[in-house]
């Protein structure tokens, strides 16, 4: 994170504020749909009030978790392997977001 410390610091906190609201929505959604079957779950996430916050939760969550894991990598991984771990971190975060968002698109379409 050389020369990008301040921007990363702000990005992590801005995404945290967004996630605060998205997590509240998500926990509400989990309780409201606990035990629901396939059809009811699909119906929930096919409406804009379902797929929009869920998509944001997955996208902003992936953004936030990548910064967080990069910080852990900076703390505990010696410089030689750092780049490799950070690249794997990027792939995992983008991969999780792509699978989640792509699937939401299929559900909503």
């Amino acid at each position: 994170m050389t020369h990008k410390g301040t921007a990363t610091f702000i990005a992590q906190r801005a995404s945290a504020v967004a996630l605060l609201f998205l997590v509240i929505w998500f926990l509400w959604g989990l309780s409201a749909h606990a035990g629901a079957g396939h059809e009811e779950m699909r119906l929930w996430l096919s409406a804009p009030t379902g797929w929009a916050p869920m998509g944001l939760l997955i996208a902003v969550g992936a953004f936030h978790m990548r910064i967080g894991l990069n910080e852990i990598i900076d703390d505990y991984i010696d410089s030689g392997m750092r780049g490799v771990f950070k690249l794997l971190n990027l792939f995992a975060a983008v991969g999780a977001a792509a699978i989640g968002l792509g699937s939401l698109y299929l559900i909503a379409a």
Partner: protein
Amino acid sequence: MASDRASSNRPLSPHLQIWRWTPTMAASISHRATGAALYAGTILLSIWVFALAQGESVYAPIAGFIGSPVGVLILFGYVWALLFHTLNGLRHLYWDMGRGFDIENARRSAWLVFLASLVLAIVIVASGVSAR
């Protein structure tokens, strides 16, 4: 690059086991641990949405696993991690505004975050289980 570090004398972060136990240190470590766990949780959430999109035949076994005792345990861990990381994140944001950083307040808010996240997680998961 290890020799660079040695010559510049820059330390790595001290690891878990060298700290004396305090509520504030436990909250700090738990924030990192729940953050790492939520990384896995987000991947699982994406896989769940993927299964939901694939149709009943793919979704049913996953829904069945979530409903099993092991599944409920994982779900409880995920919900608690979400709550702890979110509430402790609020604590961090409050500190970032320059407030509540004295030892007494930090200790009290650490206990509060542990207690509130645990109680809320139990309430949410228990109500979900009883709703089925």
